[in-house]
C-alpha cells in the first residue's frame, strides 16, 4: 500500500474529522432549543427584575440619586452572585439559565468568583490572584479600551 502523500493525507484527515464532528453532534445530549430560550428568558428577566427592585429600594430607603442607587443595586447583585457561586448554587442556576444568568452582571461576577475558587488550590498569589480575571479579563480590557476611544472622540469633537 502506498503511503498517502501530503495532500491526500490532509484530505483523509478532513474526512475523518468531519465524521467525528458529526458523530459527536449525534451523541451529545440536546436540550431542546425552545426550552433553553424560555429558560434564558425567565431567568434573565427575574435577575433584571431583582436589580430593579434593589434599585428602587436603595432609592427610596436611603433617598439616593439614580446613579448611586444603580451602582448599589449592581454591587448587591455581585455580592449575591459571589455568595451563590461559593456555596455551589449558581452553577445550577447557570445550567438552566444559560444566557439568562450569563449576560447580566451576575455572569461577569460568576466568571471571576468561580475562577478564583477553582484556582485557589494553586496558591493565593499564583493561583487565585493570577487567574482571577482569566474569563472576565477580555471584558475589562476591551471595556477600558473602548471607553478610551469614546473619550478620545468626544475630546476631539470638543476641540472644535
Amino acid at each position, binding site marked *: 500500500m502506498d503511503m498517502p502523500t501530503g495532500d491526500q493525507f490532509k484530505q483523509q484527515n478532513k474526512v475523518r474529522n468531519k465524521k467525528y464532528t458529526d458523530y459527536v453532534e449525534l451523541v451529545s445530549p440536546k436540550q431542546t432549543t425552545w426550552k433553553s430560550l424560555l429558560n434564558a428568558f425567565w431567568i434573565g428577566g427575574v435577575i*433584571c427584575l431583582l436589580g*430593579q427592585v434593589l434599585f428602587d429600594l436603595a432609592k427610596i430607603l436611603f433617598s439616593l440619586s439614580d446613579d448611586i442607587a444603580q451602582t448599589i443595586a449592581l454591587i448587591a447583585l455581585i455580592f449575591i452572585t459571589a455568595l451563590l457561586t*461559593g456555596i455551589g448554587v449558581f452553577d445550577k442556576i447557570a445550567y438552566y439559565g444559560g444566557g*439568562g444568568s450569563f449576560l447580566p452582571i451576575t455572569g461577569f461576577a460568576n466568571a471571576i468568583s468561580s475562577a478564583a475558587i477553582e484556582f485557589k488550590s494553586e496558591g493565593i498569589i499564583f493561583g487565585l490572584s493570577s487567574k482571577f480575571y482569566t474569563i472576565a479579563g477580555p471584558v475589562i480590557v476591551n471595556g477600558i479600551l473602548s471607553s*478610551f476611544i469614546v*473619550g478620545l472622540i*468626544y475630546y476631539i469633537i470638543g476641540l472644535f
Partner: protein
Amino acid sequence: METFLMYIKVFIIGGLLCVLAEILIIKTKLTSARILVIFLIVGVILEAIGVFKYLKEFAGAGFTVPIIGFGSSLAKGAIEAVNKEGFLGMFSGGIFKTAAGLGAVTVFSYLSALIFSPKSK
C-alpha cells in the same frame, strides 16, 4: 401602578436580551467571553451615540443589569470626564465610573474564594 408597569417592562426587556445571548450561544458557538465583549461594545456604542439614556428611562434595570449597562457606564464615564477634566478624562473616566463595581466584584470574589472550596461536579 407605574412601578408595576416598569417591573413588567424590566422583566420582558431583560429576558429578551438574554434570549438574544442564548441564541448567539446556540447558533454561533462563540465562546462566552466573546459574547460578553460583543454586548459590552454594543452598550458602549449606544451610550456614545446618546441612545442609552432613553433605553434606561424605558426599562431601567432591563438594560442596566445586562453587561451592556457596564459598557454604557464605561462610555458615560469617559464622556463626562472629558467634558469636565479635558484630556486626562479619556484615560480615567471609564475606570472611574465603573470603579465601585470592579472593586466590589474583586473584593467579594476574593472573599468567596477564601471562604469556600471548589464543589465537585
